[in-house]
């Protein structure tokens, strides 16, 4: 075991997969310059052919990733930040998500999009979206949001080896966090949630960076005698509904903490699933701690007001316990 940061874990995942498989390469804006610090050592090891700077042409290079994947490469496409995917939306939706289906299984798209998310840092509305729910409405895409260094490494490696398109939402609020990773090859299968803390009174399902808030809230609530089970969703599509339903069957109460906008969110989807399939376990209404349906303002205080935090989770859980 070694202790590494989330961002180092991501670098290790890419490095190991590029070493292991010649068909893996990375492209995106300024990746060879290691602009974000997540590509440390890559260009030195693999050169600019496989660590490829692109022009600012998202539709072009995301679509080129799809084409390269169709003929057998395994591209990792770096989006810089998630909302830049909007520029490439047609390629993601019409080509990447649909080609395997439309061509009756003839097309294979082993492409990974890395979509770091930056919010809560006064970058205003256009830069701060957490767009996994938007993409969740599109069949044919696997969506992950690893929340620990262990999963950042193991899930990214699994994504690269997957024969399907995977979009990895990396919450930049987690990039600096440290955790243990094993020394040997680490693969974390996609599609499974993880129980991060066991509890008996309330289930708190967290999405992406909300893990930090969920765990902090659980700690605070424990002091008040409330036992919180924290489930880290990790994989958005496919979603591990079994782990969630099992937890709710045990606790009888559910809160979902999701930094994205509330309407049509991952939190909404989980709510619907539990209302439909776990209704008789529930002792209280389902609660959601999300971002309200408005844009991210530039003003730091206003933005902070909108985003989920541990206090909001604590007070919602208290209400559920009444």
């Amino acid at each position, binding site marked *: 075991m070694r202790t590494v940061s989330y961002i180092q874990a991501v670098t290790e995942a890419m490095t190991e997969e590029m070493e292991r498989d010649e068909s893996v390469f990375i492209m995106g*804006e*300024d990746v060879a*310059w*290691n*602009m974000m610090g997540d590509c440390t050592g890559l260009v030195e090891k693999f050169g600019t052919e496989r660590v490829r*700077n*692109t*022009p*600012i*042409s*998202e*539709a*072009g290079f995301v679509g080129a990733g799809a084409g390269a994947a169709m003929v057998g490469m395994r591209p990792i496409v770096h989006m810089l930040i998630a*909302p*830049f995917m*909007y*520029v490439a939306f047609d390629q993601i939706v019409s080509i990447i998500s649909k080609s395997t289906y439309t061509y009756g299984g003839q097309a294979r798209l082993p492409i990974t999009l890395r979509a770091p998310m930056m919010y809560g*840092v*006064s*970058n*205003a*509305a*256009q*830069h701060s979206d957490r767009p996994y729910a938007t993409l969740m409405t599109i069949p044919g895409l696997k969506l992950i949001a690893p929340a620990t260094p262990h999963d950042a490494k193991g899930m990214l490696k699994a994504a690269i080896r997957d024969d399907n398109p995977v979009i990895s939402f990396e919450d930049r609020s987690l990039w600096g966090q440290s955790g243990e990773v094993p020394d040997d090859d680490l693969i974390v299968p996609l599609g499974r949630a993880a129980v991060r803390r066991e509890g008996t009174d309330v289930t708190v399902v967290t999405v992406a960076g909300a893990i930090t808030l969920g765990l902090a809230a659980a700690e605070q609530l424990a002091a008040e005698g409330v036992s919180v089970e924290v489930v880290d969703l990790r994989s958005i599509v496919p979603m591990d509904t079994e782990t969630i339903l099992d937890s709710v069957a045990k606790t009888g109460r559910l809160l979902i903490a999701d930094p994205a906008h509330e309407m049509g969110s991952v939190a909404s989807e989980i709510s619907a699933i539990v209302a439909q399939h776990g209704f008789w376990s529930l002792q209280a209404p389902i609660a959601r701690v999300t971002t*309200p349906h*408005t*844009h991210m*303002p*530039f*003003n*730091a*205080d*206003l*933005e902070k*007001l*909108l985003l989920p935090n541990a206090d909001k989770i604590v007070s919602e859980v208290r209400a559920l316990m009444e």
Partner: protein
Amino acid sequence: MITVDDDLLREMYRRMSRIRKFEDTTKELLLAGELYGAFHTSTGQEASIVGSCMALRIDDSMVGTHRSHGHPIGKGAQLDRLLAELMGKETGVNQGKGGSMHLSDFSIGSLGETSIVGSGLPVATGAALAYKMRGDDNVSLCFFGDGASNQGTFHESLNLAAIWKLPVVYVCENNGYGELTSAKDAISVEDISIRAVGYDMPGVTVDGQDVLAVFEAVSEAVDRARRGDGPSLVETKTYRFENHAVGRLPEHYRSAEEVEYWRTERDPLALFRQVLIERGFDEQQIDDLDAAVSEEIVAAIEFARQSPAPPPEAAFTHLFSPSAG
């Protein structure tokens, strides 16, 4: 050759000085922690901005980018509400909602400064479409970077404008880099203006550090647009003196000598000062212009500091315009 009288020269210098001092001040405030956010300054690009903006009328529109602190100033905006926006205040041009990457003052004809690279090109094209459809004699001007010229929106916009003969001027501010990547590595041609050939519109490259050269080229394009003869592409070769974003990113992608060369040999303000002297101004007159701008900056900071922060409800206002259909 268009003639530029002394009043115009003075106003050009004044606007360039306002941009320079505004940026120097905001950089200081950012590094001191009073301002925040992703911060892309226009320092070094003053001639390109002012030469372009002054070719427009006040009622002509323009669209800017993530690097557009300077553009509204070039178009004639007041400094106080821009500074208040950078502080996230209620009195800011966007009432604290937009910040550094969206410093747009609609009162002087900005139609937005948009932080998604290349996203402004269609907007400027659409404004020109409206002017043409309504028979207005306005012109739309679009600022964008060398990096943005690689977006699909560049191709789509220039072609639309060409087939519809729209009154739009595309000003590509080629500062040599898009983030850390050199234009040489990202663009298939040396001069972006040559791409105009593919759209059958005029394309010229000018020295972006020479405000009069920019003014002349853009004025010609604006006149052409206003006459109904269609769009043009003007490329201004310029340089950003600061790093891509102030205080944030590594700067290993360009040499200190290169930056130093541009700062000392190719500073648009110093170059223009020389021109003014040749045109009969004396140093004192120019220093007086600078001094007046400094006073304006002090007042703007004061205004911004004294302004109230937006109330919590503001997070929910402006999602829609007030009138329902």
